[in-house]
């Protein structure tokens, strides 16, 4: 172990990181996102992606979905620390591998190319629920919904069909079946 002249302990062994999707229900009030995100940055947790919007207008509840990586201990801390925030109502945590949970991200692709390439571009998207949102002779805007890594792959592969711009959301999650997270 490296010797150090620090007054603090030397970092121990690093454990394996897992990817988790954390869903947080919060009061939709000023600064609430800053509290959640500030907690992550302040305590050195990762944020891979983030999606937030109001889901209950009557009760004023927003749902924040955060994709994060960390050791089991860190993920536990993330949940417990989040639950301490005053505007937080409940916190759910899913492993990315969890078969009972659906994860989806949405992406908008803009292609500028000749009509032949544009058709190929649309075909290439066919597995990911493509919707054409805008179309001209020279361009197309296609919306797809897919997993993160699928979108990663797509945005790499589609450059040959004239992909010029990508806009994508963070992941959102929902459990399968009739169960609702309480």
């Amino acid at each position, binding site marked *: 172990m490296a010797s150090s*002249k620090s007054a603090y*302990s030397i970092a121990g062994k690093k454990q394996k990181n897992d990817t988790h999707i954390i869903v947080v229900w919060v009061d939709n009030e000023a*600064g609430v996102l*800053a509290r959640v995100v500030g907690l992550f940055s302040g305590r050195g947790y990762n944020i891979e992606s983030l999606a937030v919007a109001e889901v209950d207008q009557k009760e004023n509840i927003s749902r924040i979905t955060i994709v994060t990586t960390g050791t089991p201990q860190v993920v536990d801390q993330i949940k417990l620390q989040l*639950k301490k925030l005053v505007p937080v109502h409940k916190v759910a945590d899913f492993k990315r591998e969890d078969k009972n949970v659906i994860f989806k991200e949405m992406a908008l692709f803009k292609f500028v190319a000749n009509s032949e390439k544009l058709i190929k571009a649309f075909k290439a998207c066919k597995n990911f629920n493509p919707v054409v949102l805008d179309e001209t002779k020279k361009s197309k805007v296609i919306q797809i919904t897919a997993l993160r890594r699928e979108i990663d792959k797509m945005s790499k592969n589609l450059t040959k069909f004239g992909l010029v711009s990508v806009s994508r959301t963070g992941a959102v999650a929902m459990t399968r079946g009739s169960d609702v997270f309480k």
Partner: protein
Amino acid sequence: MPKLYSGAEIVFKCLEDQGVSHIFGYPGGAVLPIYDELKNFNSIKHILVRHEQGAGHAAEGYARSTGKPGVLLVTSGPGATNAVTALTDAYMDSVPLVCITGQVPTHLIGTDAFQECDTTGITRPCTKHNWLVKDINDLSEIMHKAFEVATTGRPGPVLVDIPKDIQFQKTKYKNYRKVKKLNGKSHDNFSQKNIDELIKLISKAKKPIFYTGGGVINSGPKASELLRELVYATGFPITSTLQGLGCFPADDNQFLGMLGMHGTYEANNAMYSCDLMINIGARFDDRITGKIDEFSPKSKKVHIDIDPSSINKNVKVDLPIVGDIKSVLTSALKTLKKSKKNFSKSNKHQISNWWEKIQKWRSKRSLDYIGSEETIKPQYAIERLYELTKDKDTYITTEVGQHQMWAAQHYKFNKPNRWMTSGGLGTMGYGLPAAVGVQIAHPKKLVVDIAGEASVLMTMQEMSTAVQYNLPIKIFILNNEYMGMVRQWQELLHDKNYSESYTAALPDFVKMAEAYGCVGIRAKTPEELDDKIIEMLNTDRPVIFDCLVDKQENCFPMIPSGKPHNQMLLGPKDQKDKKITGKGRTLV
């Protein structure tokens, strides 16, 4: 038509309803409407400090010594930023504070107006919660909720930022009604099954130890009583963190002294070798655990804490019990008495080997130091201070550094809420203003700030506050002309390169006392020390006591170089055999 109140009036009505009797503050442009209203509320006394950090620490001293929330009132911009150190300090040590700040009028927010700052943004990471009041109709509800958040669960600081125009606007006053549920944030979350498991572990343990912390004190005086009952009922040894001192009598035979970096040999070795550790209201801080991989390797660990996020944060435990210490201990005692009558007697044999081992560690006398006839040893000064004040109900505050550790080691506390020190954040300059707050709360009691000359200079201006309000606080400075703890680390870790740790041009503290209008006393030799301390105690005014101590003295024992608990460094006698040389001299 119901009576309409201004925002400023509502602030005071809320404080009245919350039973606040003292607030610490400093006026400024953005809080003037609130200050204007002060004269109409006689039940609330305002203490004018000399710097907003002082207001914060004074409120902390008030809160820690009474168990009630401390309240401070400061202006926008620099007023708020000056309070940040105290808020962070309170956050780290779980002290309930309500900080009210003025803000520029709502229409100027975001325009970089005069004395504007993003107060809620700056204080978000150092408060439990904060609010910017944008609508006068929310004010009373927010004020009451602020008190609720500060004082429930694990206590901590909160902040309410009130723009100046809101302070002028008028509305109806909504009476205080207790919120049933704070967004689902429950506190007692344990079952009888947890308690049964705890009692099972207790009855099986051969080498048990209680490790207690500030949570016991935050749970109220009753928790300390219950703790004593439990410790006597089990016959187990007990050690305490810095913040937990006083919840168990320090002169009791079952008490092993403080643990951790500068804890006793017996406490740290017992922590290392135990087979059952019962953590009550402590948080496995890095100054306590030492090297985490080798922390108490063979023990089952129980962690009783009100904050679920404290569990498994630093150390993985076998039995977590989330709840208020008072209710957990009540249940535990009830179950213990029911299932195991006369447990301490029947169990005596089972832990007798353990006690023998502890006595052996004890016989090392790890707090001993080499006395001197010529110079005052700092440990001796604290021992004498203790002997001469132990019959009074004394409140001790400290600054941060060697003197703080010596005070924790050599001053023996027998009651909770008598010991105010900055542990988590380690804020130099905490002790003097904290003493002001303690004395405000306990006007007839003896309040002593055990200080270092470097720390105390950071908030020395609060002597004016003490003089203004006739607060007879005693500032007991162990003056070694060095930032002692920095010097000690430089000696042990950085090849005696005393980089910038010597304070040249120190003020003459006796003359300084006179300049402030209080009393200065200086002690130079061990011989005159007692008389001077008695002179200090007999002075019914604020005193600055300049105690000139050995400049080279180090604070021992200590756990060096990222080592576990069983590899402590004892005092100078021991060091001859076990000289620390070479690389790897990391503290904890």
